[in-house]
Structures are given as structure tokens and as C-alpha cells.
């Protein structure tokens, strides 16, 4: 099943390519020569222990942080050094580990503003797109609720809907499963599958929840101390000694065989 998805993605052609991404913070190399490709229609898991550079990688890909060195291309266009809003308009959308909703807005407005910003569509068209995105994520019933009163789990879903409303080619999700219970993880799994199938986005998922990662990803890319320590099919990656060692004591990979 994973294999067919990759084949399907290859047919669409578009790719987000990260080559030799490196980021230094005053003395600390947070990301160190990381390279990977994300095809449209593919779901790639980016995992690693706390502080291994996952969020920093997403911040580099979306232009929120400047690369120390390395190169990023989106569907063949070199976007290295571009400001975030230009990269966004190239079809790269994201969510944030620490949720960043527009608290003064209703849920619908949060999503509407995304549709307006990315494509410059009219407000009426934006409202229609917002409704579609809310439906995809399954939160149409929350459309008129103020974003400031949402519970945490719903906040993350609104962030996904907001990202989707930009009609992205690539969707980068930073811990979409954080704080969700088992049932909610199941719903999220289904949602991600649906986004891939219906919209054909390439999705990068960062998460610590191995049920989510193993359940949805075609491939995994594992970081530790900013470096790539493994990549490949989920079942292969979880047997890699380096991965087991990196996670030693945290037991997530080795100790939770109920993954898929």
C-alpha cells in the first residue's frame, strides 16, 4: 500500500527538495547537512528525540529561519533565502508546534484569511474555500466559534484547515498529534489519508506519537542532534540500531509494536 502511494506521487512530478540543510544557532548546530525529498502525494515522517532539529527544519523549509547553508527547491524553483510569504505562495503550508491561531478571529475567519492570502481570491470565493477546508478536517460545526475559546485538540485541526485553505502542494505538520487522545489520533490518521488522496498534497509529519507515524507515513527520516541517522520505509527504520539507540529509554519505537 505504501509502495503504490509512492508510485502515484511520482506520477504527479512535483517535489520539495531539501539539500544539505544546515542551521547554526550561536555555537549550536541545530540542523546539520540534512537532505530529503518530499513528493506530492507522499507522506514523509520526520522523527527524532527532543531537540533533534525537527522544528528547526520546518522553519528553514518555510523561510521563517535563514539557512546557514544548503538549498531548498519547490517544484523545481530554487526558493533558498526567500521570505516566508513568498515560499507560502509557492504552495508550501505549515502548522506550528506551539499553535499560532489568530485568536481575535472566528474559526472561519482564520481559515478564510489563509485562502485570501495565498491566492488573492475574493472574500466570497475565500469563504467557499474555507468551508471546504473546514469540512475536509471535519470541523464545519465550529466555523462561527471564536478561535480563543477552542480546546487544544480543535486548535490543531483549525491550523490544518487553515494551511489547507492555501491549497498547498506541500503540507508541513509540526506535531499535529500532540495532546490528542487515542480516538482523536485515529481521526487525524484518517484526515491525513484523505488530504493525500483528495488533494494530492505531499505531507511532512513531525510527531512523537508512533501510532500516528507508523500508521500514515510512506517513509521516515530520522534526526538526532541535527543529523540524519536513518531513512527509509517505516518497518526498516524502526529496526535500525542507530534509531533504537537514539530512542533508547524512550521506548517509543522499540517498545510499541502496535504501530501499524
Amino acid at each position, binding site marked *: 500500500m505504501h509502495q503504490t502511494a509512492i508510485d502515484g506521487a511520482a506520477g504527479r512530478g512535483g517535489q520539495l527538495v531539501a539539500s544539505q540543510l544546515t542551521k547554526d544557532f550561536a555555537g549550536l548546530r541545530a540542523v546539520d547537512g540534512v537532505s530529503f525529498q518530499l513528493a506530492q502525494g507522499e507522506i514523509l515522517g520526520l522523527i527524532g528525540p527532543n531537540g533533534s532539529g525537527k522544528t528547526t527544519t520546518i522553519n528553514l523549509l518555510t523561510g521563517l529561519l535563514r539557512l546557514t547553508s544548503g538549498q531548498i527547491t519547490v517544484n523545481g524553483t530554487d526558493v533558498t533565502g526567500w*521570505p516566508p510569504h513568498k515560499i507560502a505562495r509557492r504552495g508550501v503550508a505549515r502548522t506550528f508546534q506551539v499553535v499560532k491561531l489568530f485568536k*481575535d478571529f472566528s474559526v472561519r475567519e482564520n481559515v478564510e484569511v489563509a485562502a*485570501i492570502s495565498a491566492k488573492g481570491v475574493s472574500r466570497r470565493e475565500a469563504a467557499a474555500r474555507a468551508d471546504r477546508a473546514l469540512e475536509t478536517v471535519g470541523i464545519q*460545526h465550529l466555523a462561527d466559534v471564536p478561535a480563543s475559546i477552542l480546546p487544544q485538540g480543535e486548535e490543531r485541526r483549525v491550523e490544518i484547515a487553515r*494551511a489547507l485553505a*492555501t491549497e498547498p502542494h506541500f503540507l508541513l505538520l509540526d506535531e499535529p498529534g500532540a495532546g490528542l487522545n487515542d480516538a482523536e489520533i485515529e481521526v487525524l490518521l484518517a484526515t491525513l489519508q484523505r488530504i493525500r488522496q483528495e488533494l494530492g498534497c505531499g505531507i511532512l509529519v513531525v510527531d512523537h506519537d508512533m501510532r500516528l507515524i507508523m500508521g500514515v507515513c510512506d517513509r521516515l527520516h530520522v534526526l538526532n542532534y541535527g543529523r540524519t541517522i536513518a531513512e527509509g520505509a517505516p518497518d526498516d527504520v524502526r529496526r535500525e540500531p542507530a534509531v533504537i539507540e537514539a530512542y533508547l529509554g524512550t521506548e517509543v519505537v522499540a517498545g510499541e509494536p502496535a504501530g501499524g
Partner: protein
Amino acid sequence: MTTSRATTGEVARRLSTPIILLAGLLALTLLAAVRDDIVFERVITVMLINLVLVVGLQIFMGNSGLGSFGQYAFVTIGAYGSIWFSLTPQQKRVALPDMPRDWWLYEQHLPFWPSVLVGALIATVVGALIGIALVRLRGAAFMIATFAFLIVVNRVALQWSEVTRGSRTVIGIPKYTGLWTAFICAALAVVLAYAFKESSIGLKLRASREDEDAAASLGVDAPRIRWVAWVISVFFSGVGGALWAHFIQQFSPHNFYLAETFLIVSMLIIGGTGSVSGAVIGTVAVALASEQLRQIENWLNTQRTEGTWFGDLLPFQFVGFTEIVLAVAIILVLIIRPSGITGGRELSWPRRWSRRRQAMPSPADAPVKPS
């Protein structure tokens, strides 16, 4: 789906805001027009001119979340810029005696409205240019830069006597701004500010105010949009300056400085920066309260000079009473209700009760039931 019907209701609710605000302003203006009270008419006219400035300021501050202390730089430019054109060459000889007779500007003469427009446009061009640099700043740096620009313009106006008569008062400006002129401009400002806020660009700017990183990740170019709002805001400052010049009929750069800046910023903060309603309510409240305070101040001082038993109790002559109360009011508002009287909300036709009650529906009642 009920979406389309809900949206129609929402549109009606949104339209109700400018209608309510304009109705209120019209009522006050009519009252001033029919009451045979020159002082009251003057109070309302000044209030409406200030409203153009405060609403203009709200367009920028409310939507971008940045504070500006520089609006009076553009009021200055709008005021002088408009009289350069509204005055005839003969009038300029009196009002601006230092202007060389062989200047192109000396010969120019336009009717009132075109002069207002030209004055405002000169202010806008200056604002647009300085804005290119300003919008890259944030927070305190932005506020300080706008304030610094006010100082620059003020100093230039004081020195450049060919076009401003320097620190001396320009006199003999015809009185073109009346109650209804001021009302028309204030009404236009209110409608435009509200339309801007609700427009897609306004929505994007408010999103960047809430979280600039998140907005950028959706494709919002915050500095560029801030610049647009800044330029519109500056335009209204210029219009306000032009109106003021033709109302007060004589002024110098000293009339466009700190106390005036403090007044319009207070009006906006007291009313609530986040909404156009806040700008209107703050301006009206402060204008009417100031007038009451001024009357009380006069009464107290009269008691004292006449030496009544009550007047003898007063320890000193009251000067600047109004300003002190205004300053205390702003401190109280900042402490008790930091987002102003309106709390950043717009006045509008109330939503139906049922909608407000089910603010947080559970997925179970997803299809909205009409109740």
C-alpha cells in the same frame, strides 16, 4: 447547509455597524445645527475634525497593532499644503509674507475642496516615502520612529518660513470648514475605515497583528500591507489638517505638536483601538467630557475670583484641569480596560440569542438547528 443563510445574516449585522455610527454622528450634528448655541456648534465641529484624525489613526493602529505618535506630522503638512492652494496671491501676501513672489506656488489658487485634496495628497506622498522605512520596524522602535518624524516635521515647519511663516502664526485664512463640511469628512472616514477593516487586506493585516509568523506562513506580506494602511491613515491626517486650517483660520506649527498628539491618541485608546466604533465613541466621549470639564473649571474659577464662600475654599486657580482628568482617564482605562470602552468590538445589531448561547457546539449538533 445553512452556511449561506448564516452569511446573509452576518452581512446584515456587519452593515449595521457603520449605519449605527453614522446615525449617532448625524444626530449630534443635527443637534448642533438646530440648537442656537455657537459654543456647542464649535465643540461638535472640532469633534468631527478630530474624528477624521482619530479614525485615520485607527485605520493604522487598530489593524496593524502598532502605535503611531507621528500623525501630527501629516496634519501639519496637510494644513500648510492646503492653504498654499486655497489662498489667493493677495491673501498669501498677508498670510505667508515670506513666500517669494516669483514662486510658482505663489500664483496658485484652487477652490476649497481641491485644496484639501492637494494638501492631503502632499502629506500622503511624504507619508508613503517615510513609510517604506517605517514599516520594517515593530513595537517600541516603530513608535519612537514616528515620534521622531513628528519632531523633524515640526522643526522644519518652524524654520522654513517661505512656506510656513516659521514660528509666527499664519493669519487671514478664509473659514471654509463648517459643521457640515466636518460631518461629511468624518462620515467618509468612518465608512472607509470600516470598509478597510472588513476588506481582505484589512483581514490580512489583522491576522499579522495577531501573529506575524503565522500570517507570513499563509502568504501575507505584512510590511507591504502595513504600508498600505499607513498611507491611508496618513491621507486622513492630511485631510484633518486641511479642515482644521480652514476652521481655526490661524495657526502655527506649535498648534500641531505634543498636546494635540496626546489628545487624539487618548481618544482612540479610551474608545478602544481595535474597532472603528472605539474611535468614534472615544472621540465623542472625550470631546463632550472635555467640554463639561471646561465649564466646571470656568465655574470654579469664577467662584474663586468672585470670592463666594465656596470659592474661598478653593486653594488655587484651576488651570489644565481638563488635561489632568483626561490623563487620569487614560491611566484608568489602561489599567481597568486595556482594550478601551468598546473592548475592540464594533457596535452592531445584536446576534440572535440562540447563536450566542451555543458558542461552543459539540460535534453532535453539527447541523445548526434553527431555534
